[in-house]
């Protein structure tokens, strides 16, 4: 169980996390979603006390992280696959981490096997690929058999097989009654892994709801319309609550009107339709809709760049 109350973090004049409150419950996989720079990593660092909150508090199992008697056994954390000395072997890194809590050597071998690192365990971490580094980070997080897992972008750099492995691992750990909190900037990843999703944008919580609810917010709201007379139909449909986007020369995405209404409007003005399909909202759409105004780094227009 992770509880944050009024948590804020400023770096100089820049606000990374802006007065957020949330609860991450045991037995569930909670996804922490947001564009890059939204404050996800900062929030996770605040939870484990690597950064000091500017205001507010955050507790794990009802205590401040620093007050835990056995931090590694309460909380397993993957903040950054690179939080390892590159000159040390994976096994020695795990042995050093285990030693702080007198965790037996046997457990080190277990997490090495669990994360599939046997063949590279004695190699220096500096020679690791991003994916192997990620596995070592997860092995470190699992070392203390913790009740709470905090994983920052765990699938970053993993191959498809590794992605599925992390997904199953997260589900499995939550199934055992543990608290699993993982961040991603990819909605599609969360859709398949998380039960609950907290969406962060520019340091603020935009949404905190079960995956199904977030999906429902956009479900069936878009309609795909194919017509040879795109311009005319766009004119007819466009209005206050209606958003029409041309995605192909003969294809429109219409938000805010039911398929039946679109059909009637088209019939009245004798516009030919080749397709009229209500589109189930994807989590990706929901995410984009939610974070539309909250993305910190928008891609600049290519044309502007060219004129420079």
């Amino acid at each position, binding site marked *: 169980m992770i509880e944050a109350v009024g948590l804020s973090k400023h770096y100089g004049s820049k606000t990374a996390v802006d007065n957020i409150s949330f609860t991450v419950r*045991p037995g569930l996989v909670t996804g922490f979603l947001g564009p890059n720079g939204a404050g996800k990593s900062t929030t996770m*660092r605040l939870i*484990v*006390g*690597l*950064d*000091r909150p500017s205001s507010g508090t955050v507790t794990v*199992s*009802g205590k401040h*992280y*620093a007050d*835990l*008697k*056995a*931090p*590694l*056994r*309460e*909380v397993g*954390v993957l*903040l*950054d696959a*690179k*939080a*390892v*000395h*590159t*000159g*040390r*072997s994976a096994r*020695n*890194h795990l*042995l*050093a*981490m285990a*030693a*702080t*809590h*007198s*965790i*037996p050597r046997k457990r080190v071998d277990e997490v090495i096997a669990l994360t599939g690192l046997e063949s590279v365990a004695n190699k220096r971490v500096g020679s690791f690929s991003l994916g192997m580094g990620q596995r070592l980070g997860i092995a*470190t997080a699992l070392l*203390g*058999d*913790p*009740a709470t897992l905090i994983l920052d972008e765990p699938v970053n750099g993993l191959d498809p097989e590794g992605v599925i492995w992390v997904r199953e691992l997260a589900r499995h750990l939550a199934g*055992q*009654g*543990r608290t699993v909190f993982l961040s991603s900037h990819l909605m599609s990843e969360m859709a398949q892994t998380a039960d609950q999703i907290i969406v962060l944008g520019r340091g603020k919580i935009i949404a905190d709801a079960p995956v199904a609810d977030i999906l429902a917010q956009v479900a069936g709201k878009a309609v795909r319309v194919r017509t040879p007379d795109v311009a005319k139909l766009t004119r007819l449909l466009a209005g206050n609550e209606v958003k029409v986007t041309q995605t192909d020369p003969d294809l429109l995405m219409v938000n805010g009107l039911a398929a039946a209404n679109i059909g009637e409007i088209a019939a009245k003005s004798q516009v030919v339709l080749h397709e009229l399909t209500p589109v189930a909202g994807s989590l990706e759409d929901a995410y984009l809709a939610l974070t539309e105004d909250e993305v910190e780094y928008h891609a600049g227009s290519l044309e502007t760049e060219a004129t420079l």
Partner: protein
Amino acid sequence: MTTTGNTAGRSTAATPATAHGPRLSFVGILRSEFIKLFTLRSTFWCIVIIVLLSVGFGLLASTIQVPHRAGIPVPPPLTSAQQQARAVTFATIGSQIGELVLAVLGALVITGEYATGMIRSTFAAVPRRLPALIGKAIVLAITAFVIGLVTIYGTAAIIFPLLPGVKVHPHWDNWTLNESLIGGAVYLMLIALIAFCVGAIIRNSAGGIAGALGLVFVLPIIVNIIGGLTQATWIGNIGSLLPTSAGGHLFSYTNSKTQVVSGVLSLDRLDGGLILLGWFVVLFIVAAVMLKRRDT
């Protein structure tokens, strides 16, 4: 009330209660820091270089005989005390260059973790941070002292049998001689610790090493030059308080205070050792306060 609530919550969890079984302890932190120090190649390279420097320079110094030139009066034979002093110099001369390497090692112990990001794993395991800093310092202190002691006595054991060749007869049972050799190891330990503190404050490998070497080696030269130009006594006294000059008394055979001449500072072994210790303590406090305050 709260206690029972917590216990009830724990027992329903699938994971074992943390009230039993492994937990964070200072002994564990020490063991962890030992593993960390001795699982890095840089540590072994530092030890190898220190040993080679110490033995090499010791051999060089003790076997070079200044050829006697005609016309120059033959110098009088050394007194026994002078012979002991010379034996100490030969046994410790290499480790005075080796201290450079130990200073680098001391700084790297902490800056290496900042450079690689390892420090975040360290502080995730030891969230109060200070025990980790103290643990690192203790492990470094023990390691540097043992390296220093073994190297200096090892060098002495190799070169002392050769010294009669240059008309120096060291006496192993001379207590001042042993005090000086042990003092040399203490000196190396404190220099490594001071470099460690500078590394902990600066947090960057290049900066930490440069800062430590600057304090230990460059600052005395600057103060010397200024002192030489101005001929001011107080600048000379500041020079005597710098780590290398104050610490030098730790392994100097001539251990008595010289006569105090008009305000010029004179130190003996204990004074010098305490001043060097003072440098470490002050820097360690600064490092500890910054460690607690800063984000990682």
